[in-house]
């Protein structure tokens, strides 16, 4: 709970440029993790929940969210699981990540979700869970509207 007592101000907007991985434009609420994600053995493809033991997002779902994460790890089933998540309607709306690998490139392609990387600033330090994020991959632009903290008393 924040002790912030300022009157509601205009929401803070941040614009970052980066490289398109998969084209398209989507917006939604961010879910952010500093842990890399496994596909096969790391997510439940039926509901988009992270299932890996000792993972920061364990039990949380990225379905319909903007998934912001360092990158992919683990099994080569990465793309197949994000592919099935899409077929099940459980894929993220868009993805932003730092480290390019074949797993994540293919996974983003088959998830049919706009995806970007190589942002001019580390998205993991700028974007927080709950922020509203618009990923305009075609134009290489990410627009972040910071979540309003506190002041609700």
């Amino acid at each position, binding site marked *: 709970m924040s002790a912030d007592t300022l009157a509601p101000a205009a929401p803070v907007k941040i614009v970052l440029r980066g490289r398109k991985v998969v084209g398209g434009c989507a917006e939604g609420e961010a879910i952010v993790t500093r842990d890399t994600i496994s596909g096969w*053995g790391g997510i439940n493809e039926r509901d988009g929940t992270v299932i890996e033991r000792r993972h920061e997002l364990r039990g949380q779902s990225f379905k319909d969210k903007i998934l912001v994460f360092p990158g992919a790890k*683990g099994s080569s089933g990465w793309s197949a699981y994000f*592919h099935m998540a899409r077929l099940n309607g459980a894929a993220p709306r868009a993805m932003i990540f730092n480290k390019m690998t074949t*797993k994540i490139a293919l996974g983003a392609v088959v998830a049919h979700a706009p995806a970007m990387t190589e942002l001019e600033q580390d998205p993991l330090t700028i974007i927080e869970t709950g922020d509203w994020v618009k990923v305009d991959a075609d134009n290489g632009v990410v627009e972040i509207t910071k979540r309003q903290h506190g002041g609700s008393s």
Partner: protein
Amino acid sequence: MKLTDHEKSMLDGAQGRAKARAMDLLVRYGEALGAEHLVETNNVAGAFNASTPSVRELARKGFDAVYSELNLDSSEVVEVPRMVANTCQLVTGIDNEQWRVQGIPEDLAEQQKRGEEFFGSRGINMFATCTPYQVGNVPVKGEHCAWMESSAVVYCNSVLGARTNTEGKESTGAAALTGRIPYWGYHIPDNRYGTHPVDIAVDVDDIMDWGLLGYYLGEIIDDEIPVLTGRWHQPDLVKLKHFGAAAASSGGVEMYHLPGVTPEARSAEEAFGGNRVKATVRYGEAERRIAYENLNCATDRGVDFVMLGCPHNSIDQVWLIASLLDGRKINASTQLWVHTPRALREVADRNGYTRMITAAGGFVMSDTCPAISRHMPKGTRVVATDSAKQAHYLPAITGVSAWFGSVRDCVEAAITGRWSGGLP
């Protein structure tokens, strides 16, 4: 991405719809990676089977539909022609002979067999193992491959000196039909040099040692390239199979160098190839214990299920297990499954190893493993295994808790029903 005339004609559909869809996927994938062009490959290892419940609905539309969606990312159903590249099937979810022991519904077992008939007739070799290098697909140094299966990829790059990225179900599906894969990552010689020196300050000798080392390094190094120096002893296929699988589970290691052993590192200097070397990773007693404790999430010493053979056992490992079980009986409340490629199962049958294991109450299985199939003996809560990879994934996938130890610890657990292993 720059395409050759031949690649353009495939993309334009001049060579059929399947190749057009395959090229379309490869172009989207290559551009996502930032690859400049494709490279020819004649060695593909992928996942073409249809053995999971989620494929049931697609499979009703036929296997052209399965391949189109799951192996080409194409909602257009294309007629699947013969494969252009030499292609094999990796591990599947179902043992074709012992699916009842696994608890697989009959319709799924039938679906897999129909799928194999279809894919087999297109030239996909049904090795049905995570270790194609144990049963006849042994690429040579420098060969461009398109392989899935993280444990096979790291073996292919590091031990064999062939070149592959960790491909996926869709990219291998497209590569098999076109003989192409993006020229990126480990296909490029400059990306194959070591990044992290690893100073091994404890003896690394048996399979369990190599598993622990791999599991620790994966978590620290993620997907970079360790160069191992210090107190490791000469390994063999089995030890490196376990080491790579562990490092590719806790992290994303796709290549490593063992100076004097692996083909691109006659020396540590050659392994680094002039790379600016990152901070040395130390592996001593404390690090070994961290890996052990991270792998052993069980607290209950009662063991319901013992799983041996991830990655799939070599024939020598099957013989060791059979020898340890000879004349003994597995505990009534514990099950033992021993996994080996079907081609090696043939040898195990012929040698009488299978009989020794089944006489003790165990099962010898092929084509699958519990993590891939998500099937274990009914009611399993605690599993024991000699595989760091299986101990990493089974708790996440199925909710069981796991003990990790040596093959001897695991066989003892099968016989007594209790875990008495530990870190020597």
